[in-house]
């Protein structure tokens, strides 16, 4: 069973004034409830209305219907919609309906969460109800109360785990599609800082399943890992040095530097494939672990490659100075050159945490360079050595940044490819105005230093017209600037240049675009933006939400945390508030 999580439809702007009563279930059994933020009081009064009319006509805040989850494929592979109603901190309810047909297949359940003292009824109850369809429901609310519903997707919440759901994926969102050839991974909540920790499990996702985890959905561009055995399969536990029976996982080799090398463990640690080495004896020279056969990875002078590798010190002291390097070789595998690589201790000294390092370098060994391979290099070790360490998931990519680990199928070594992803949401006119709307997104970029990668996007989130395939308006960020582009037939730059925004690893970014056809406006956290620029020339309906793969580009690597579409043109102050507030 696959259930998506974290999407919600908010009925009404946060400052909406609700008036009159609303019978959600067409006269059937229901419960009324009302929440007043200003009074911190939540009450319910039984049927028939969902919300009790406030006698004083005052403002009700944060009254919302939340759709979370949402689609559960049944035996006919028919997606079913699981809707959750209510504030997660106040109450929670759930129903299942089939989109389109709209048949109720489960009970609506409302479970009191944290407000037991404030409810004057039973703490938990359930009832069945009829609902023509979710969209008609939302439309009815909108028409009756002149409310504006908004779509919000929150990839960082796991509100359905309590229901026993074991997986939540983007593609299950109603009216959404997500495709990607090849498997992908969620890299343990790594923020992609060089030497950053991976506190969580590395989770592998099959083709067409969107990786997600605590930091949100993992969006990443297509890439090939040229290391043929990144799962490090096939190692033999035992001493390697002197033919002691141990063996590296093929085709890994090592320059031993006079030390005694042994494989002391192998397998998966929280989903992270590893080989554990134990070093002992006395060092007499530089040592290295080479993670690929010298003749395997075809490369040429001038190319920019990125090697990445996980590392954890289990015990002892690592000998010498550690660096992650890219070696250059001839077609026959003869050494040509290697730079100093990335000094691991200067990034983040290896310790008991799982850390992931990377090095991006341009091959400069000259015309004879025809191969390249990644290495963990021990420079200048000396004296007695005693340490145990684990290496994880080596990777080598022909681009200027690391992406999440890519693995070939189990027991099938070989270079392997994660394809480009296409993620869209068809926006329903029932809760969305395709010509006057605001898109608010929250992302955590995974690239900061984009040396050698200046033309590519760090993240891209936008809207476009599905019918014509054009009319894009989207945010993207590259190495030097933040831009919003709107285009009907050709791109119109709404805002570019350096806006004084310095990205940092782990830093959450928020931005908002206003579509007010034909104009557009945007804000980015930090106060930068453009107001109501008619040069956007937006004349088409923006009826699709799309991530990363926009205008044929899918270069970004980022965590998509939240996405919120409001069917209204927010004011400049509202825009600023949206991107600056939590």
């Amino acid at each position, binding site marked *: 069973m696959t259930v998506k999580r974290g999407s919600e439809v908010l009925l009404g702007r946060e400052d909406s004034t609700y008036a009159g009563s609303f019978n959600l279930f067409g006269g059937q059994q229901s419960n009324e409830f009302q929440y007043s933020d200003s009074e911190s009081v939540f009450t319910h009064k039984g049927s028939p209305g969902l919300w009790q009319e406030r006698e004083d006509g005052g403002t009700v805040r944060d009254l919302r219907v939340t759709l979370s989850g949402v689609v559960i494929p049944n035996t006919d592979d028919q997606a079913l919609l699981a809707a959750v109603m209510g504030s997660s901190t106040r109450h929670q309810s759930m129903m299942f309906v089939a989109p389109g047909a709209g048949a109720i297949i489960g009970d609506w359940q409302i479970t009191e969460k944290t407000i037991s003292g404030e409810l004057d009824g039973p703490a938990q109850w359930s009832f069945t109800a009829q609902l023509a369809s979710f969209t008609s429901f939302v439309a009815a609310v909108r028409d009756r109360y002149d409310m504006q519903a908004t779509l919000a997707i929150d990839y960082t919440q796991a509100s359905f785990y309590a229901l026993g759901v074991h997986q939540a994926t983007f593609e299950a969102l109603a009216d959404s599609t997500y*495709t*990607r*050839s*090849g*498997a*992908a991974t969620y890299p343990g909540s790594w923020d992609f800082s060089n030497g950053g920790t991976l506190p969580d499990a590395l989770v*592998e*996702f*099959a*083709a*067409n399943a969107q990786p997600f985890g605590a930091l949100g959905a993992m969006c990443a561009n*297509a890439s*090939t*890992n040229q290391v*043929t055995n990144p799962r490090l399969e096939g190692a033999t536990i035992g001493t390697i040095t002197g033919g002691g029976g141990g063996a590296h996982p093929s085709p890994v*080799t090592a*320059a031993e530097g006079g030390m005694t090398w042994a494989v002391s463990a192998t397998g998966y640690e929280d989903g992270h494939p590893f080989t554990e080495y134990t070093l002992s004896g006395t060092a007499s020279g530089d040592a290295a672990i080479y993670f690929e*056969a*010298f*003749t*395997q990875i*075809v*490369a*040429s002078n001038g190319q920019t490659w990125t090697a990445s590798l996980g590392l954890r010190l289990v015990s002892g002291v690592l000998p010498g100075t550690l660096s992650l390097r890219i070696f250059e*070789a001839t*077609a*026959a*595998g*003869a*050494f040509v050159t290697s730079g100093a690589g990335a000094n691991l201790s200067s990034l983040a000294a290896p310790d008991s945490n799982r850390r992931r390092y990377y090095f991006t370098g341009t091959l400069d060994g000259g015309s004879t360079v025809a191969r390249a391979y990644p290495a963990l290099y021990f420079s200048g070790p000396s004296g007695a050595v005693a340490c145990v360490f684990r290496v994880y998931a080596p990777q080598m990519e022909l681009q200027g940044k690391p992406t999440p680990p*890519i*693995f*070939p*199928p*189990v027991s*099938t*070594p*070989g*270079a*392997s*490819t*994660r*394809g*480009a*992803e*296409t993620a869209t949401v068809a926006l329903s006119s029932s809760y969305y105005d395709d010509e006057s709307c605001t898109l608010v997104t929250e992302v955590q970029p995974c690239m900061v230093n984009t040396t050698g990668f200046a033309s590519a996007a760090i993240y891209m989130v936008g809207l476009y017209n599905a019918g014509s395939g054009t009319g894009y308006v989207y945010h993207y960020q590259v190495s030097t600037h933040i831009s919003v582009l709107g285009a009907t037939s050709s791109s119109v730059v709404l805002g570019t240049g350096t806006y004084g925004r310095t990205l940092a690893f782990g830093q959450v970014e928020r931005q908002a675009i206003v579509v007010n056809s034909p104009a557009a406006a945007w804000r980015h956290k930090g106060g930068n933006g453009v107001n109501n620029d008619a040069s956007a020339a937006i004349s088409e309906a923006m009826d699709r939400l799309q991530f990363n*793969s926009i205008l*044929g580009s899918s270069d970004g690597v980022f965590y998509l945390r939240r996405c919120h579409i409001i069917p209204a043109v927010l004011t400049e102050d509202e825009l600023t508030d949206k991107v600056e507030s939590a």
Partner: protein
Amino acid sequence: MTGASFFYAFESDAAAVAAMPTHVAVRDGVLAPVRSTIAVVSTDGVWLTQPQGSLDAATGEWVQTDAGERSPPVVVLSAVEIEGAGQFEVVPAGHAGFAGV
């Protein structure tokens, strides 16, 4: 699910576009896929047969015993078989295709 792997190799970007115009296109001078079932995996070819070699026990240097064979440079990987492009299909020994779990 393991991604399917159909490899097609071409001498140039133009040849790739000519053979599969609805699958790849040249954008900003770079061959790019136009659908998610496609990946351009190499512009330097892929191994059709992998090179063979070993570390010399005495010197510690890599000794190549078989140079292997490379495909034409532009290699497109598809999750579905592309009709009409069969003459360009290759079966590389050095690539696992789309990643799989």
